[in-house]
C-alpha cells in the first residue's frame, strides 16, 4: 500500500512535469512570522519572499528557478520541528533557512543534521555554531560578539567599572550571560547586575541601585523591545552623567522614535551597516549591498528593513551563492560549497566560512554607533 501511494505521487509529479518549464530548486524556510517573536520573523519572512522573487526575476540560479516553501512556526519550537520535518520529507527541499529564535533553531537544527540538509539559522545564540555542526550555519552575530564590541569601545574610553541591566526575556538573558562571561577578558568589571521583566513599565529602582553602587563609569542595557526604550527614558529622567550603552537588539530607527531624540541623545550601540545605509560612503564595501536591499524593501513594503531582516537577506543570498557555485542541487554539494564561502559581502558583514567556523563574521562586522540629534553617527 505504501508502495502504491508513493508510486502514485511520483506519477502525479511526472504528469505535472510538462507544465514546469524548467527544473526548479526547492528552498525551504520556517520563520516565526506571528507570535511573540514576530518582530524577528515578520520582516524575515517578507525579506525571504522578496529576495527569492528577485533572484527568480533575474533568471534564477544557473537558469533554474527557486521554488520557495515558507512556513510560519509562530515561535513554537515544537511546530518548528514539525515544519522542518515536513520541509525535508514532504516538500523535499534541498536547503533550509529560518529559525528566528534560538529555540526554534535548535529544533530545526536536529532535523537538518539528521537528514543531511544544509541549514542557515537566523538566531543569535553561540550554541548554534559552537560546537560546529556539519550542516548548520548562521548569519547573525552572536551575543558574545556584541558584548566584545561594546567592551572594546569602553576600554578605548578608559571605562572599566560598569553596571549591567538586562531583560529576563530570551534575548536579554542570553546577552547578560555572555557579557558576564567575556567581561573579565576584556578588562571590564561588572559591579552591578540588575534585571527587569519584559513587561515592566518602570526601571527607575534598578537604575537607582546601579547609581548608588560606587564608581560606576557606564551602564550597559542588554535587552530587546520596549524594555530598553523605558530604560533609556528613565536614564534621562534620572539625569545620569555617565554614558549608556544599548545592545544590537534595539538597532533600529523605531527605537529612536520610541524613546524620543532628546532622551536617546548620546546612547551608543553596536549595529550593522544596514542601519546607516544612507550614510555609507560609496567606497565602503557594504555600500552596494545595503543600498540595493534597502531600496528594494522600501519599494515593496514601504517600510525600513530591520537588522533582523538583514540576517534573512544574507542567508538567502549566501544559499543562492552556494547553490550556484555547487552547480548542483544535491544537499551535500550545497553544504560543501556553503562551507567554502569566502569574502561574501552581506548587509550584516563579510562572511568567510570554514570547517571550524560556521558563522564567518568577525567584530569588524559590527559598527559602533551613537545617537545624535535623533540620527545615527558612526564612531569607528
Amino acid at each position, binding site marked *: *500500500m*505504501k508502495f502504491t*501511494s*508513493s508510486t502514485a*505521487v511520483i506519477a502525479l509529479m511526472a504528469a505535472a512535469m510538462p507544465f514546469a518549464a524548467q527544473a526548479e530548486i526547492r528552498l525551504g524556510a520556517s520563520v516565526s*512570522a*506571528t507570535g511573540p517573536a514576530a518582530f524577528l520573523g515578520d520582516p524575515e519572512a517578507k525579506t525571504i519572499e522578496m529576495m527569492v522573487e528577485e533572484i527568480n526575476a533575474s533568471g534564477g540560479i544557473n537558469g533554474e528557478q527557486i521554488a520557495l516553501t515558507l*512556513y*510560519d512556526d509562530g*515561535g*513554537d*519550537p*515544537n*511546530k518548528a*520541528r*514539525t515544519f522542518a*520535518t*515536513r520541509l*525535508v*520529507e*514532504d516538500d523535499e527541499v534541498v536547503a533550509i533557512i529560518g529559525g528566528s*529564535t*534560538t*529555540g526554534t533553531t*535548535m*529544533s530545526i537544527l*536536529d532535523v537538518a543534521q*539528521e537528514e543531511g540538509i544544509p541549514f542557515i539559522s537566523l538566531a543569535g*545564540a553561540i*550554541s548554534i555554531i559552537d560546537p560546529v555542526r556539519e550542516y548548520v550555519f548562521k548569519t547573525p552575530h552572536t551575543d558574545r560578539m556584541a558584548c566584545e564590541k561594546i567592551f572594546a569601545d569602553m576600554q578605548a574610553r578608559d571605562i572599566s567599572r560598569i553596571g549591567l541591566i538586562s531583560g*529576563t*526575556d*530570551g534575548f536579554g*538573558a*542570553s546577552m547578560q*550571560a555572555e557579557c558576564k562571561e567575556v567581561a573579565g577578558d576584556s578588562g571590564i568589571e561588572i559591579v552591578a547586575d540588575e534585571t527587569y521583566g519584559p513587561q515592566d513599565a518602570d526601571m527607575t529602582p534598578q537604575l537607582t541601585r546601579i547609581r548608588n553602587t560606587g564608581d560606576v563609569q557606564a551602564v550597559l542595557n542588554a535587552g530587546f523591545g520596549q524594555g530598553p526604550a523605558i530604560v533609556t527614558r528613565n536614564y534621562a529622567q534620572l539625569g545620569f552623567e555617565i554614558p549608556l550603552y544599548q545592545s544590537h537588539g534595539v538597532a533600529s530607527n523605531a527605537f529612536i522614535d520610541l524613546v524620543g531624540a532628546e532622551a536617546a541623545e548620546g546612547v551608543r550601540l553596536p549595529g550593522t551597516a544596514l542601519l546607516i545605509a544612507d550614510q555609507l560612503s560609496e567606497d565602503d564595501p557594504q555600500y552596494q549591498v545595503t543600498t540595493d536591499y534597502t531600496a528594494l524593501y522600501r519599494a515593496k513594503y514601504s517600510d525600513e528593513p530591520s537588522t533582523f531582516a538583514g540576517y534573512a537577506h544574507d542567508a538567502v543570498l549566501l544559499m543562492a551563492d552556494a547553490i550556484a557555485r555547487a552547480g548542483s542541487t544535491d544537499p551535500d554539494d550545497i553544504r560543501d560549497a556553503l562551507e567554502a564561502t569566502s569574502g561574501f559581502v552581506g548587509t550584516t558583514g563579510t562572511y568567510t566560512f570554514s570547517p571550524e567556523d560556521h558563522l564567518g563574521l568577525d567584530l569588524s562586522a559590527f559598527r559602533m554607533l551613537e545617537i545624535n540629534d535623533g540620527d545615527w553617527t558612526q564612531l569607528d
Partner: protein
Amino acid sequence: MGSRRKWIQLAVLAALIIVLPFFFPSSYYYRVGALIFVNALAVVGMVILIGYAGQISLGHAGFAGIGAYACALAPEYLGLHPGLALILGAVTSGVLALLIGRPILRLKGYYLGVATLGFGILVSMVLTNERALTGGPDGMSVADPGLRGMLRDLGWRLSVGELWYGVSAIALLIGAWVALNLFDSPTGRAMRALHGSEVAASTVGVDVARQKLRAFVISALYASVSGSLLALQNGFITPDVAGFMHSIEMVTMAVLGGVGSVLGGTLGAAILTTLPQVLTIFAEYEQLVLGAVMILVMIFLPQGLLPSIARRFRGRDE
C-alpha cells in the same frame, strides 16, 4: 457502558493507529501522528478531570512542563536514564498535584480555573527564570534515550519518525485503556456522581474532596508523561511546553472532541494538531478558522464532536 464497548473503543483506536501508516506518503506524517498521540494522551487526562469529575484546570501545561524538564534535567544533573527521568517527572507531578490539589480543589468554577491558571504560570515562570538550571527561554536539549540504537541492535531499523509514532501510540493506548477502565470502576462512578451534583454525591456517601483530588492527580500524571514524551522525541525543550497557551490547547482539544469521551478527546487532539498543518496556505486565517470551528461546535454540538455524532447515529437507543 459495558466492557464490550470499552474493548470496541480500544480496538478502533488500535486499528486506526496500525492502518493509517499504510497511507502515509512520507515519514513527515509519522511526526504529525506522534504529535497527535502525545497531545491526545494529555487530553485523555483532561477527559478524566473535566469529563468524569467535572473539575476545570487551566494550568495542566505546568505538569507537562515538569515532565518535559524532568527528562531534560535528570539525565544531565543526576545521571539518570531518560526513561527513568520520565517516571521521576510523573512522580514529581503526582506529588505536586496532591499537595496543591488539596487547597485548590476546595474552589469551584471560575475560582478553580484561576487558581490552576496561577499554578501553570508559576511553573513556566520558574522554568523561564532559572536560567542557570534550565537554560531560560532559549531552552535546553534533551538526551537521546537510546531506544533507536537498542532496536537497531535487535535488528529492527526504524526512522526517528516511525519510532516515536510507535512509542507515542503505545503510551496513548495504555492511557486510553486505563481511562476506559476507570469509567466503570467504583472510583469512576463516584467521580461522575460528583460531576452530576456534589451535594447528591456526598449524600450517597461519596468522599467528594478525595475523588476530586484523585481525578486531579491522575490527570496530572497524564500531562506529565505527555510532556516527557514530547521532550524525548523533540530532543529539545523550551518553557513554551509549560506555557498558558498549551494549557488552553489541552482544554480546547478535550472540549472540541467531546469532553466525556476518551475517543472524542483523541479526535479533538487529532483535529487541533493537524489543522495548523492543513491550513499553512492560509496561515494568516488559521486563528480565524480555529475560532469559527470552536464556536460552531459549541453551538451545534455542545457535547463535543464525537458524542454528538455518535448519538445521532444511534438514534433512539440512548
